[in-house]
Protein backbone atom coordinates (compact mmCIF):
# COMPACT_ATOMS: atom_id res chain seq x y z
CA UNK A 1 0.00 0.00 0.00
CA UNK A 2 2.67 2.46 1.11
CA UNK A 3 4.90 1.33 -1.72
CA UNK A 4 2.15 1.83 -4.29
CA UNK A 5 1.42 5.26 -2.90
CA UNK A 6 5.03 6.41 -3.06
CA UNK A 7 5.27 5.05 -6.58
CA UNK A 8 2.15 6.96 -7.60
CA UNK A 9 3.51 10.11 -6.01
CA UNK A 10 6.87 9.58 -7.70
CA UNK A 11 5.18 9.20 -11.07
CA UNK A 12 3.15 12.34 -10.53
CA UNK A 13 6.26 14.34 -9.63
CA UNK A 14 8.10 12.93 -12.65
CA UNK A 15 5.20 13.81 -14.96
CA UNK A 16 5.05 17.31 -13.54
CA UNK A 17 8.80 17.70 -14.02
CA UNK A 18 8.61 16.43 -17.60
CA UNK A 19 5.80 18.76 -18.58
CA UNK A 20 7.49 21.74 -16.91
CA UNK A 21 10.70 21.01 -18.78
CA UNK A 22 8.63 20.71 -21.95
CA UNK A 23 7.02 24.11 -21.28
CA UNK A 24 10.44 25.71 -20.71
CA UNK A 25 11.67 24.28 -24.01
CA UNK A 26 8.63 25.73 -25.76
CA UNK A 27 9.09 29.11 -24.10
CA UNK A 28 12.75 29.21 -25.14
CA UNK A 29 11.62 28.85 -28.77
CA UNK A 30 8.71 31.30 -28.58
CA UNK A 31 10.71 34.38 -29.61
CA UNK A 32 12.07 32.60 -32.67
CA UNK A 33 8.65 31.18 -33.50
CA UNK A 34 7.24 34.71 -33.36
CA UNK A 35 9.74 35.70 -36.05
CA UNK A 36 7.65 33.56 -38.37
CA UNK A 37 4.22 35.09 -37.73
CA UNK A 38 2.80 33.15 -40.66
CA UNK A 39 3.15 29.85 -38.80
CA UNK A 40 1.50 31.21 -35.65
CA UNK A 41 -1.33 32.86 -37.56
CA UNK A 42 -1.96 29.60 -39.36
CA UNK A 43 -2.24 27.84 -36.01
CA UNK A 44 -4.54 30.50 -34.56
CA UNK A 45 -6.73 29.81 -37.57
CA UNK A 46 -6.56 26.05 -36.96
CA UNK A 47 -7.26 26.19 -33.24
CA UNK A 48 -9.51 29.25 -33.23
CA UNK A 49 -11.40 29.83 -36.45
CA UNK A 50 -12.03 26.13 -37.00
CA UNK A 51 -13.50 25.82 -33.48
CA UNK A 52 -15.87 28.74 -34.03
CA UNK A 53 -18.87 26.72 -35.16
CA UNK A 54 -18.86 24.38 -32.17
CA UNK A 55 -18.14 27.24 -29.75
CA UNK A 56 -20.96 29.39 -31.13
CA UNK A 57 -23.50 26.58 -31.30
CA UNK A 58 -22.76 25.39 -27.79
CA UNK A 59 -22.65 28.96 -26.47
CA UNK A 60 -26.09 29.63 -27.86
CA UNK A 61 -27.61 26.50 -26.34
CA UNK A 62 -25.87 26.89 -22.98
CA UNK A 63 -27.25 30.43 -22.87
CA UNK A 64 -30.76 29.29 -23.80
CA UNK A 65 -30.77 26.55 -21.14
CA UNK A 66 -29.45 29.07 -18.64
CA UNK A 67 -32.35 31.35 -19.60
CA UNK A 68 -34.93 28.60 -19.02
CA UNK A 69 -33.47 27.28 -15.77
CA UNK A 70 -32.58 30.73 -14.45
CA UNK A 71 -36.05 32.04 -15.11
CA UNK A 72 -37.65 29.01 -13.47
CA UNK A 73 -35.48 29.37 -10.38
CA UNK A 74 -35.75 33.16 -10.04
CA UNK A 75 -39.48 33.12 -10.60
CA UNK A 76 -39.86 31.09 -7.39
CA UNK A 77 -38.49 34.07 -5.49
CA UNK A 78 -40.36 36.52 -7.63
CA UNK A 79 -37.13 38.02 -8.88
CA UNK A 80 -37.18 36.98 -12.54
CA UNK A 81 -36.15 40.52 -13.43
CA UNK A 82 -32.62 39.72 -12.22
CA UNK A 83 -32.28 37.04 -14.90
CA UNK A 84 -29.97 39.25 -16.93
CA UNK A 85 -27.44 39.84 -14.19
CA UNK A 86 -27.55 36.30 -12.77
CA UNK A 87 -27.06 34.63 -16.15
CA UNK A 88 -24.39 37.09 -17.27
CA UNK A 89 -22.36 36.60 -14.08
CA UNK A 90 -22.60 32.84 -14.38
CA UNK A 91 -21.49 32.96 -18.01
CA UNK A 92 -18.72 35.51 -17.62
CA UNK A 93 -17.15 34.04 -14.50
CA UNK A 94 -17.69 30.30 -14.80
CA UNK A 95 -19.61 28.75 -17.64
CA UNK A 96 -17.95 30.68 -20.43
CA UNK A 97 -14.30 29.94 -19.61
CA UNK A 98 -14.89 26.36 -18.43
CA UNK A 99 -17.22 25.13 -21.16
CA UNK A 100 -15.19 26.88 -23.86
CA UNK A 101 -12.03 25.20 -22.52
CA UNK A 102 -13.69 21.78 -22.47
CA UNK A 103 -14.93 22.26 -26.04
CA UNK A 104 -11.54 23.55 -27.08
CA UNK A 105 -9.84 20.46 -25.63
CA UNK A 106 -12.26 18.23 -27.55
CA UNK A 107 -12.05 20.06 -30.85
CA UNK A 108 -8.64 21.74 -31.13
CA UNK A 109 -6.67 19.86 -28.46
CA UNK A 110 -7.30 16.44 -29.96
CA UNK A 111 -6.49 17.77 -33.43
CA UNK A 112 -3.16 19.15 -32.16
CA UNK A 113 -2.25 15.97 -30.28
CA UNK A 114 -3.08 13.63 -33.14
CA UNK A 115 -1.37 15.85 -35.71
CA UNK A 116 1.88 16.02 -33.75
CA UNK A 117 1.62 12.32 -32.84
CA UNK A 118 1.24 11.38 -36.49
CA UNK A 119 4.16 13.62 -37.43
CA UNK A 120 6.19 11.61 -34.93
CA UNK A 121 4.86 8.30 -36.26
CA UNK A 122 5.73 9.21 -39.86
CA UNK A 123 9.26 10.36 -38.93
CA UNK A 124 8.52 13.99 -39.80
CA UNK A 125 9.78 15.25 -36.45
CA UNK A 126 12.99 13.22 -36.71
CA UNK A 127 13.44 14.37 -40.30
CA UNK A 128 13.26 17.97 -39.07
CA UNK A 129 15.85 17.28 -36.41
CA UNK A 130 18.17 15.73 -38.97
CA UNK A 131 17.69 18.83 -41.11
CA UNK A 132 18.88 20.76 -38.03
CA UNK A 133 15.47 22.35 -37.54
CA UNK A 134 14.25 22.23 -33.96
CA UNK A 135 10.70 20.78 -33.99
CA UNK A 136 9.99 22.92 -30.94
CA UNK A 137 10.50 26.02 -33.01
CA UNK A 138 8.74 24.87 -36.14
CA UNK A 139 5.99 22.58 -34.85
CA UNK A 140 5.42 22.76 -31.11
CA UNK A 141 5.80 26.45 -30.26
CA UNK A 142 3.56 27.81 -33.06
CA UNK A 143 0.81 25.33 -32.18
CA UNK A 144 1.10 26.14 -28.50
CA UNK A 145 0.93 29.87 -29.20
CA UNK A 146 -2.00 29.40 -31.55
CA UNK A 147 -3.98 27.68 -28.79
CA UNK A 148 -2.95 30.17 -26.12
CA UNK A 149 -4.13 33.08 -28.25
CA UNK A 150 -7.24 31.36 -29.58
CA UNK A 151 -8.90 30.16 -26.36
CA UNK A 152 -9.39 33.55 -24.63
CA UNK A 153 -10.92 34.86 -27.86
CA UNK A 154 -13.18 31.83 -28.13
CA UNK A 155 -14.15 32.28 -24.50
CA UNK A 156 -15.27 35.85 -25.12
CA UNK A 157 -17.25 34.80 -28.18
CA UNK A 158 -18.83 31.98 -26.19
CA UNK A 159 -19.90 34.41 -23.45
CA UNK A 160 -21.32 36.92 -25.91
CA UNK A 161 -23.35 34.32 -27.77
CA UNK A 162 -24.41 32.78 -24.44
CA UNK A 163 -25.82 36.11 -23.25
CA UNK A 164 -27.62 36.44 -26.55
CA UNK A 165 -29.12 32.97 -25.91
CA UNK A 166 -30.28 33.97 -22.43
CA UNK A 167 -31.88 37.07 -23.87
CA UNK A 168 -33.54 35.04 -26.62
CA UNK A 169 -35.29 32.77 -24.12
CA UNK A 170 -35.73 35.16 -21.19
CA UNK A 171 -36.87 38.28 -23.02
CA UNK A 172 -38.30 37.06 -26.30
CA UNK A 173 -39.96 33.87 -25.06
CA UNK A 174 -40.64 34.21 -21.35
CA UNK A 175 -41.35 37.90 -21.32
CA UNK A 176 -38.74 39.43 -19.01
CA UNK A 177 -38.68 43.17 -19.62
CA UNK A 178 -36.02 44.08 -22.18
CA UNK A 179 -34.91 47.25 -20.40
CA UNK A 180 -34.71 45.60 -16.98
CA UNK A 181 -32.78 42.66 -18.41
CA UNK A 182 -29.98 44.76 -19.88
CA UNK A 183 -29.84 47.46 -17.19
CA UNK A 184 -29.65 44.87 -14.39
CA UNK A 185 -26.84 43.16 -16.25
CA UNK A 186 -24.94 46.40 -16.76
CA UNK A 187 -25.48 47.31 -13.14
CA UNK A 188 -24.12 44.12 -11.66
CA UNK A 189 -21.34 42.87 -13.94
CA UNK A 190 -18.10 44.63 -12.97
CA UNK A 191 -14.87 44.95 -14.88
CA UNK A 192 -13.33 42.61 -12.30
CA UNK A 193 -15.81 39.90 -13.25
CA UNK A 194 -14.90 40.19 -16.91
CA UNK A 195 -11.22 40.16 -15.98
CA UNK A 196 -11.74 36.99 -13.99
CA UNK A 197 -13.31 35.33 -17.02
CA UNK A 198 -10.51 36.55 -19.25
CA UNK A 199 -7.79 35.39 -16.86
CA UNK A 200 -9.42 31.98 -16.67
CA UNK A 201 -9.56 31.84 -20.45
CA UNK A 202 -5.84 32.64 -20.67
CA UNK A 203 -4.83 30.10 -18.00
CA UNK A 204 -7.00 27.36 -19.52
CA UNK A 205 -5.54 28.25 -22.91
CA UNK A 206 -2.02 27.64 -21.64
CA UNK A 207 -3.02 24.44 -19.81
CA UNK A 208 -5.06 22.87 -22.62
CA UNK A 209 -2.59 23.80 -25.37
CA UNK A 210 0.36 22.57 -23.33
CA UNK A 211 -1.32 19.25 -22.57
CA UNK A 212 -2.28 18.78 -26.23
CA UNK A 213 1.17 19.46 -27.70
CA UNK A 214 2.88 17.50 -24.92
CA UNK A 215 0.71 14.42 -25.34
CA UNK A 216 1.17 14.56 -29.10
CA UNK A 217 4.92 15.00 -28.84
CA UNK A 218 5.51 12.11 -26.45
CA UNK A 219 2.97 9.80 -28.11
CA UNK A 220 4.14 6.30 -29.02
CA UNK A 221 4.65 6.31 -32.78
CA UNK A 222 1.91 3.77 -33.45
CA UNK A 223 -1.78 3.97 -34.32
CA UNK A 224 -2.62 2.89 -30.79
CA UNK A 225 -0.21 5.42 -29.27
CA UNK A 226 -1.70 8.33 -31.21
CA UNK A 227 -5.19 7.22 -30.19
CA UNK A 228 -4.13 7.10 -26.57
CA UNK A 229 -2.57 10.56 -26.87
CA UNK A 230 -5.83 12.11 -28.05
CA UNK A 231 -7.79 10.41 -25.27
CA UNK A 232 -5.34 11.58 -22.65
CA UNK A 233 -5.47 15.09 -24.08
CA UNK A 234 -9.21 15.33 -23.53
CA UNK A 235 -9.20 13.66 -20.12
CA UNK A 236 -6.21 15.55 -18.72
CA UNK A 237 -7.38 18.88 -20.15
CA UNK A 238 -10.83 18.47 -18.63
CA UNK A 239 -9.50 17.50 -15.21
CA UNK A 240 -6.85 20.21 -15.27
CA UNK A 241 -9.37 22.86 -16.35
CA UNK A 242 -11.70 22.07 -13.45
CA UNK A 243 -8.91 21.95 -10.87
CA UNK A 244 -7.45 25.24 -12.10
CA UNK A 245 -10.93 26.73 -12.18
CA UNK A 246 -11.38 26.00 -8.50
CA UNK A 247 -7.95 27.41 -7.67
CA UNK A 248 -8.41 30.64 -9.61
CA UNK A 249 -11.91 31.17 -8.22
CA UNK A 250 -10.70 30.59 -4.67
CA UNK A 251 -7.91 33.12 -5.13
CA UNK A 252 -9.93 35.77 -6.95
CA UNK A 253 -13.19 35.79 -4.99
Amino acid sequence: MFKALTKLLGNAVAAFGAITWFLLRILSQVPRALLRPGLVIHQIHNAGALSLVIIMTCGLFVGMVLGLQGYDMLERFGSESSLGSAAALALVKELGPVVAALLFAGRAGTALASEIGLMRATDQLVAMEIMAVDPFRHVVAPRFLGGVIALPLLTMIFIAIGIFGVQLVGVQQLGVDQGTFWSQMRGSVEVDDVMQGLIKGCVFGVACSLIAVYEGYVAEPTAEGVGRATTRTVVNSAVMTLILDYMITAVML
Partner: protein
Amino acid sequence: MLNSSPTTPNLVEIRDVYYSVGGRDIFKGLTLNVPRGKITAIMGPSGTGKTTLLRLITGQIRPTRGQVLVDDQDVSKLSRRALYALRQRMGMLFQNGALLTDMSVFENVAFPVREHTDLPESLIRNLVLTKLQAVGLRGAYKLMPHELSGGMARRVALARAMVRDPHLLIYDEPFAGLDPISMGVILRLLRNVNDALAITSIVVSHDVDEIAQVADLSYILAGGKVVASGTPKALKEDQSGLVRQFMNGLPDGPVPFHYPADDYFKELLA
Protein backbone atom coordinates in the same frame (compact mmCIF):
# COMPACT_ATOMS: atom_id res chain seq x y z
CA MET B 1 30.84 24.33 -46.62
CA LEU B 2 32.81 21.30 -47.77
CA ASN B 3 35.75 20.45 -45.63
CA SER B 4 38.53 21.40 -48.04
CA SER B 5 41.35 19.53 -46.34
CA PRO B 6 40.13 16.17 -45.14
CA THR B 7 42.37 15.07 -42.31
CA THR B 8 41.31 11.45 -42.33
CA PRO B 9 40.36 9.22 -45.22
CA ASN B 10 37.17 8.27 -43.36
CA LEU B 11 34.20 10.60 -42.99
CA VAL B 12 32.57 8.39 -40.38
CA GLU B 13 34.39 6.22 -37.87
CA ILE B 14 32.63 3.99 -35.39
CA ARG B 15 35.13 2.94 -32.74
CA ASP B 16 34.35 0.08 -30.38
CA VAL B 17 30.78 1.20 -29.76
CA TYR B 18 28.54 -0.40 -27.15
CA TYR B 19 24.88 0.42 -27.03
CA SER B 20 22.05 -1.19 -25.17
CA VAL B 21 18.43 -0.29 -24.73
CA GLY B 22 16.01 -1.74 -22.21
CA GLY B 23 18.60 -4.24 -20.98
CA ARG B 24 19.13 -5.59 -24.50
CA ASP B 25 22.58 -5.17 -26.03
CA ILE B 26 22.35 -3.85 -29.57
CA PHE B 27 26.05 -3.23 -30.19
CA LYS B 28 28.89 -5.02 -28.48
CA GLY B 29 32.10 -3.45 -29.68
CA LEU B 30 31.08 -2.30 -33.13
CA THR B 31 33.89 -0.87 -35.24
CA LEU B 32 33.56 0.30 -38.82
CA ASN B 33 34.75 3.05 -41.15
CA VAL B 34 33.01 4.90 -43.91
CA PRO B 35 35.52 6.18 -46.47
CA ARG B 36 35.01 9.61 -48.02
CA GLY B 37 33.45 9.81 -51.45
CA LYS B 38 32.37 6.18 -51.49
CA ILE B 39 29.08 4.35 -51.14
CA THR B 40 29.16 2.17 -48.06
CA ALA B 41 26.45 -0.39 -47.48
CA ILE B 42 25.39 -1.58 -44.06
CA MET B 43 23.61 -4.91 -44.28
CA GLY B 44 22.41 -7.52 -41.87
CA PRO B 45 19.41 -9.52 -40.74
CA SER B 46 16.43 -7.63 -39.29
CA GLY B 47 16.89 -6.52 -35.72
CA THR B 48 20.67 -6.22 -35.83
CA GLY B 49 20.53 -2.50 -35.19
CA LYS B 50 21.11 -1.07 -38.66
CA THR B 51 18.70 1.77 -38.06
CA THR B 52 20.12 2.23 -34.57
CA LEU B 53 23.52 2.72 -36.19
CA LEU B 54 22.10 5.55 -38.30
CA ARG B 55 20.63 7.13 -35.21
CA LEU B 56 24.07 7.00 -33.58
CA ILE B 57 25.71 8.61 -36.58
CA THR B 58 23.12 11.41 -36.72
CA GLY B 59 23.41 12.00 -32.99
CA GLN B 60 19.83 11.11 -32.09
CA ILE B 61 21.13 8.67 -29.49
CA ARG B 62 24.43 8.36 -27.68
CA PRO B 63 26.47 5.18 -27.29
CA THR B 64 26.91 3.66 -23.85
CA ARG B 65 30.60 3.34 -24.63
CA GLY B 66 32.89 4.05 -27.56
CA GLN B 67 33.18 6.83 -30.09
CA VAL B 68 31.16 7.87 -33.10
CA LEU B 69 33.26 10.24 -35.20
CA VAL B 70 31.75 12.20 -38.05
CA ASP B 71 34.10 14.56 -39.84
CA ASP B 72 36.56 14.12 -36.94
CA GLN B 73 34.00 15.25 -34.37
CA ASP B 74 32.75 12.92 -31.64
CA VAL B 75 29.00 13.11 -32.16
CA SER B 76 28.17 11.95 -28.64
CA LYS B 77 30.13 14.81 -27.09
CA LEU B 78 28.70 17.64 -29.15
CA SER B 79 26.44 20.31 -27.71
CA ARG B 80 23.01 20.73 -29.28
CA ARG B 81 24.22 23.74 -31.24
CA ALA B 82 27.33 21.97 -32.56
CA LEU B 83 25.27 18.89 -33.39
CA TYR B 84 22.82 20.99 -35.38
CA ALA B 85 25.76 22.61 -37.19
CA LEU B 86 27.08 19.16 -38.06
CA ARG B 87 23.65 17.98 -39.19
CA GLN B 88 23.50 20.84 -41.66
CA ARG B 89 26.18 18.95 -43.55
CA MET B 90 24.18 15.73 -43.52
CA GLY B 91 21.20 14.61 -45.51
CA MET B 92 19.05 11.65 -44.70
CA LEU B 93 16.54 9.73 -46.74
CA PHE B 94 13.96 8.05 -44.56
CA GLN B 95 12.31 4.77 -45.34
CA ASN B 96 8.92 6.34 -46.04
CA GLY B 97 10.29 9.67 -47.22
CA ALA B 98 9.11 11.54 -44.09
CA LEU B 99 7.94 14.47 -46.20
CA LEU B 100 6.20 17.20 -44.26
CA THR B 101 2.59 16.47 -45.07
CA ASP B 102 1.30 20.05 -44.86
CA MET B 103 3.62 21.34 -47.58
CA SER B 104 3.81 20.89 -51.34
CA VAL B 105 6.68 19.05 -53.00
CA PHE B 106 8.34 22.37 -53.80
CA GLU B 107 8.05 23.66 -50.24
CA ASN B 108 9.33 20.37 -48.85
CA VAL B 109 12.51 20.60 -50.89
CA ALA B 110 12.83 24.31 -50.14
CA PHE B 111 12.30 23.75 -46.40
CA PRO B 112 15.93 23.23 -45.30
CA VAL B 113 17.07 26.14 -47.47
CA ARG B 114 14.46 28.51 -46.09
CA GLU B 115 15.20 27.45 -42.52
CA HIS B 116 18.94 27.93 -42.69
CA THR B 117 19.58 30.67 -45.24
CA ASP B 118 18.20 34.01 -46.32
CA LEU B 119 18.53 33.37 -50.02
CA PRO B 120 16.29 35.39 -52.32
CA GLU B 121 13.18 33.63 -53.57
CA SER B 122 14.42 33.45 -57.18
CA LEU B 123 17.55 31.61 -56.08
CA ILE B 124 15.59 29.19 -53.89
CA ARG B 125 13.31 28.49 -56.83
CA ASN B 126 16.23 27.65 -59.10
CA LEU B 127 17.90 25.54 -56.44
CA VAL B 128 14.77 23.52 -55.76
CA LEU B 129 13.88 23.06 -59.40
CA THR B 130 17.41 21.87 -60.22
CA LYS B 131 17.25 19.22 -57.52
CA LEU B 132 13.77 18.16 -58.55
CA GLN B 133 14.98 17.95 -62.15
CA ALA B 134 17.78 15.64 -60.98
CA VAL B 135 15.28 13.21 -59.49
CA GLY B 136 12.95 13.62 -62.47
CA LEU B 137 10.10 15.29 -60.61
CA ARG B 138 10.34 18.92 -61.66
CA GLY B 139 6.87 18.56 -63.16
CA ALA B 140 5.44 17.45 -59.82
CA TYR B 141 6.53 20.48 -57.82
CA LYS B 142 2.97 21.59 -57.08
CA LEU B 143 1.73 18.23 -55.80
CA MET B 144 1.09 17.51 -52.15
CA PRO B 145 2.83 14.53 -50.47
CA HIS B 146 -0.40 12.48 -50.32
CA GLU B 147 -0.66 12.68 -54.09
CA LEU B 148 2.69 10.93 -54.61
CA SER B 149 3.40 7.23 -54.99
CA GLY B 150 5.87 5.61 -52.59
CA GLY B 151 8.71 5.78 -55.11
CA MET B 152 7.99 9.40 -55.99
CA ALA B 153 7.86 10.39 -52.31
CA ARG B 154 11.26 8.86 -51.81
CA ARG B 155 12.66 10.73 -54.79
CA VAL B 156 11.31 14.02 -53.44
CA ALA B 157 12.85 13.16 -50.08
CA LEU B 158 16.15 12.53 -51.86
CA ALA B 159 15.93 15.94 -53.54
CA ARG B 160 15.30 17.45 -50.12
CA ALA B 161 18.18 15.55 -48.54
CA MET B 162 20.65 16.83 -51.13
CA VAL B 163 19.31 20.35 -51.63
CA ARG B 164 22.00 21.87 -49.40
CA ASP B 165 24.80 19.79 -50.94
CA PRO B 166 25.64 17.74 -47.84
CA HIS B 167 28.90 15.94 -47.10
CA LEU B 168 27.14 12.82 -46.09
CA LEU B 169 23.97 11.29 -47.45
CA ILE B 170 22.34 8.55 -45.41
CA TYR B 171 19.77 6.20 -46.89
CA ASP B 172 17.58 4.13 -44.57
CA GLU B 173 16.21 1.12 -46.51
CA PRO B 174 15.88 3.08 -49.76
CA PHE B 175 14.56 0.09 -51.72
CA ALA B 176 12.04 -1.33 -49.25
CA GLY B 177 8.60 -1.77 -50.77
CA LEU B 178 9.43 -0.30 -54.18
CA ASP B 179 8.45 -1.74 -57.55
CA PRO B 180 11.35 -2.79 -59.82
CA ILE B 181 11.20 0.38 -61.92
CA SER B 182 11.27 2.74 -58.93
CA MET B 183 14.00 0.61 -57.43
CA GLY B 184 16.09 0.99 -60.59
CA VAL B 185 15.52 4.74 -60.53
CA ILE B 186 16.65 5.05 -56.92
CA LEU B 187 19.68 2.86 -57.59
CA ARG B 188 20.79 5.02 -60.48
CA LEU B 189 20.17 8.21 -58.52
CA LEU B 190 22.17 6.88 -55.61
CA ARG B 191 25.22 6.30 -57.78
CA ASN B 192 24.85 9.53 -59.79
CA VAL B 193 24.30 11.73 -56.77
CA ASN B 194 27.29 10.27 -55.01
CA ASP B 195 29.61 10.75 -57.96
CA ALA B 196 28.29 14.06 -59.26
CA LEU B 197 28.26 15.83 -55.91
CA ALA B 198 31.37 14.05 -54.60
CA ILE B 199 29.67 13.13 -51.38
CA THR B 200 29.84 10.14 -49.09
CA SER B 201 26.88 7.80 -48.90
CA ILE B 202 25.79 5.29 -46.30
CA VAL B 203 23.08 2.89 -47.36
CA VAL B 204 21.30 0.65 -44.92
CA SER B 205 19.58 -2.13 -46.76
CA HIS B 206 19.05 -5.82 -46.92
CA ASP B 207 18.36 -5.94 -50.60
CA VAL B 208 21.58 -7.81 -51.31
CA ASP B 209 21.46 -7.88 -55.09
CA GLU B 210 20.49 -4.24 -55.48
CA ILE B 211 23.08 -2.98 -53.09
CA ALA B 212 25.79 -5.12 -54.71
CA GLN B 213 25.31 -3.09 -57.90
CA VAL B 214 26.23 0.24 -56.35
CA ALA B 215 28.15 -0.19 -53.12
CA ASP B 216 31.90 0.28 -53.03
CA LEU B 217 32.15 -1.32 -49.62
CA SER B 218 29.77 -3.45 -47.58
CA TYR B 219 29.53 -4.35 -43.93
CA ILE B 220 27.41 -7.16 -42.58
CA LEU B 221 26.29 -6.71 -39.00
CA ALA B 222 25.14 -9.50 -36.73
CA GLY B 223 25.11 -9.97 -32.98
CA GLY B 224 26.13 -6.39 -32.33
CA LYS B 225 29.33 -6.58 -34.35
CA VAL B 226 30.64 -6.48 -37.89
CA VAL B 227 30.85 -10.10 -39.03
CA ALA B 228 32.12 -9.44 -42.52
CA SER B 229 33.21 -6.55 -44.69
CA GLY B 230 34.55 -6.00 -48.16
CA THR B 231 33.36 -5.34 -51.67
CA PRO B 232 29.96 -6.85 -52.45
CA LYS B 233 31.69 -9.23 -54.88
CA ALA B 234 34.03 -10.52 -52.20
CA LEU B 235 31.16 -11.00 -49.81
CA LYS B 236 29.22 -12.97 -52.42
CA GLU B 237 32.10 -15.39 -52.61
CA ASP B 238 32.60 -15.58 -48.86
CA GLN B 239 31.88 -19.10 -47.73
CA SER B 240 31.62 -18.53 -43.96
CA GLY B 241 28.29 -19.60 -42.53
CA LEU B 242 26.41 -16.44 -41.78
CA VAL B 243 27.67 -14.43 -44.74
CA ARG B 244 26.75 -17.23 -47.11
CA GLN B 245 23.33 -17.56 -45.53
CA PHE B 246 22.68 -13.84 -45.70
CA MET B 247 24.04 -13.15 -49.19
CA ASN B 248 22.17 -16.10 -50.66
CA GLY B 249 18.99 -15.75 -48.63
CA LEU B 250 19.02 -19.24 -47.14
CA PRO B 251 16.18 -19.75 -44.65
CA ASP B 252 18.18 -21.71 -42.10
CA GLY B 253 21.77 -21.51 -40.94
CA PRO B 254 23.64 -19.63 -38.24
CA VAL B 255 20.56 -17.40 -38.05
CA PRO B 256 18.03 -20.09 -37.18
CA PHE B 257 14.67 -20.33 -38.92
CA HIS B 258 12.98 -21.20 -35.64
CA TYR B 259 12.53 -18.80 -32.77
CA PRO B 260 13.96 -20.56 -29.67
CA ALA B 261 11.33 -23.00 -28.34
CA ASP B 262 10.91 -26.20 -26.36
CA ASP B 263 11.17 -29.52 -28.10
CA TYR B 264 8.54 -29.71 -30.84
CA PHE B 265 7.37 -33.30 -30.26
CA LYS B 266 7.29 -32.94 -26.52
CA GLU B 267 5.11 -29.86 -26.81
CA LEU B 268 2.69 -31.45 -29.27
CA LEU B 269 2.32 -34.66 -27.26
CA ALA B 270 2.05 -32.93 -23.90
